[in-house]
């Protein structure tokens, strides 16, 4: 009887996972706040110290990809809905910005609209597509994104240039600060979301949708919330891209490659963790930009192999490899000091 009883008294799996996720967020809170503030300050100081455009461009890309990865992670990692249509949201953000901004709307307004448009579109499309589960959701969203890309390529076939007057006043620093601020805002929003009750509900859906529904967590509103927030930040990332890039085909930000980048970054860093997309973005951009210089373009090959290894062997990504190493180090040190004290 004890056996059965003790089994039943254990919290159910999704709840337990949600609780440990919550603990994961709160444990190192104070220390990490200080570290985050220091890093943010240091990053903010970079344009004051140097005007080297290669440094600023590299950091800009890292910030942009943190937002891209984290916004995907909100939906795929935390809510468990592996969307392959993320590029559509990024593209919509870019399109909204260029349309409004070039049409005379001040950039800050265009920027805000670029978050809202994808969020609204995504919630409209989300209601039918959330009927799909697992991989069906993935390929369904991929198909929708491709429809959008092809349509944009056909209706807007010409390259979109920054107008001459804007080009004349083009400066890298404002782009840099926008991306930095957006990256910080995305991180903060993700952090706050998954500390909240609502965020716990989203995590519960990821663990077991049916079980969560049975305990009163309604799946659709929670999934929609994750989708809307994810879309909002993806759209803002697209807007930042449209603000930064001098010229591109309007179709380019809709390309599935952006989705794949978000996927790689998040998985390599650690899917479903707060810090994963940050590590992933740093690693990804660094390797990609370095290799582009020295080794032609082998980075898809390297990331393909890395990605498969992570899915099959280290599903927790860099974050998990880090914790495992730290744990191994700690136990080794503990046993080492133990044996030394035993020796005395």
């Amino acid at each position: 009887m004890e056996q059965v009883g003790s089994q039943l008294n254990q919290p159910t799996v999704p709840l337990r996972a949600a609780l440990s996720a919550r603990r994961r967020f709160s444990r190192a809170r104070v220390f990490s706040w200080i570290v985050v503030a220091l890093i943010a300050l240091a990053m903010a100081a970079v344009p004051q110290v140097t005007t080297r455009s290669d440094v600023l461009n590299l950091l800009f890309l890292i910030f942009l990809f943190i937002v891209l990865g984290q916004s995907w992670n909100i939906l795929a990692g935390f809510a468990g809905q592996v969307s392959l249509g993320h590029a559509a949201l990024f593209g919509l953000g870019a399109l909204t910005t260029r349309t409004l901004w070039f049409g005379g709307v001040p950039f800050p307004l265009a920027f805000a609209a670029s978050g809202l448009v994808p969020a609204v579109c995504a919630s409209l499309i989300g209601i039918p597509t959330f009927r799909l589960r697992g991989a069906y959701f993935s390929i369904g969203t991929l198909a929708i994104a491709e429809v959008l890309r092809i349509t944009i390529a056909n209706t807007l076939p010409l390259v979109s240039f920054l107008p001459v007057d804007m080009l004349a006043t083009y400066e890298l620093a404002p782009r840099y600060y926008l991306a930095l601020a957006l990256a910080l805002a995305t991180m903060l929003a993700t952090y706050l979301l998954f500390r909240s009750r609502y965020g716990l509900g989203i995590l519960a859906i990821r663990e077991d949708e049916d079980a969560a529904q049975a305990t009163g967590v309604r799946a659709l509103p929670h999934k929609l919330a994750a989708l809307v927030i994810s879309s909002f930040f993806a759209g803002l990332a697209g807007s930042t891209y449209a603000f930064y890039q001098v010229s591109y085909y309007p179709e380019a930000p809709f390309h599935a490659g952006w989705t794949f980048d978000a996927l790689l970054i998040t998985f390599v860093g650690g899917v479903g963790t707060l810090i994963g997309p940050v590590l992933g973005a740093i690693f990804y951009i660094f390797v990609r930009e370095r290799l582009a210089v020295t080794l032609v373009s082998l980075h898809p090959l390297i990331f393909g192999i890395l990605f498969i290894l992570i899915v099959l062997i280290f599903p927790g990504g860099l974050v998990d490899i880090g914790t495992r190493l730290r744990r191994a180090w700690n136990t080794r040190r503990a046993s080492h000091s133990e044996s030394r004290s035993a020796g005395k």
Partner: protein
Amino acid sequence: MTLIIQNLVFGLFVGSIYGIAAVGLALVFGVMKMLNIAHGELLMIGGYVSFWLFHLAGVDPFLSLLISAPLLFGLGVVLHQVLYRHIARFETEQKIKNSMLVSFGLVLILQNLAQQMWTADERSIQTAYSGVGADVLGVALPYTRMANLGLALLVVIGLHLFLSRTYLGKAIRATADEWESAILVGVNIRQTFLITFGLSASLAAIAGALVVVGYGLSPSIGLAWTLKALVVVVLAGTGSVFGVVPAGLLLGLGEAVSGIIAGPAYREVFGLLIFVAILVVRPQGLFGRA
């Protein structure tokens, strides 16, 4: 009028390739419950094998199938042993998701390798009989395209006979239906998986050869073909292999019709929209039996 019929006929011809591309994907999905996003990349590699055999040794692309299909079978076996084998232990839903992720990684690898080895140039094969064809009431029927259609029908009949008449084929179907019972009657399902995956890669090789004869081949065509194959599998609905080729023809026709109505640029959009619509109406999945 003639132009419209011509369009429809060409739609039918390209639809036969969609059919073959989809049969391989459907086989792996039905039997192994895995979604191989890299199927289009296998098709692409098969196409390159045919291309180089023609280009370097003058082998006729339809004959080169005798080399490229076994070669891709071997590649399929290797990929299965190195990658997909490790996913077999998961629960069905996890299996589909993980196979999708792993094959996504494979897409990056194969695409990049193809680019490194064969450059990003678009290739195609021009045989001596390439432009030649019959003419029926002003509608051109090129021999190569008719051969595509004929080959597609041959392949699906052959596959059907294999699956319904041989013990091995029946073991594959039994594994698709109820893999635990397959073990209970003595089927070595690991072997079944291996053969299924190899077979799927060979079918991709056949489709690839047809693509390089009639259409264009480049390292980046994989995703588009995987999507086409997925659309066809969803259109076909049930697990029957026989349903897949008619569904492929249907997609080809539908694309031709939408090309006539909305302009050729929107051909692809038609299939994808149908795909999403069917998925939303039948969310239980590609092979859901009610």
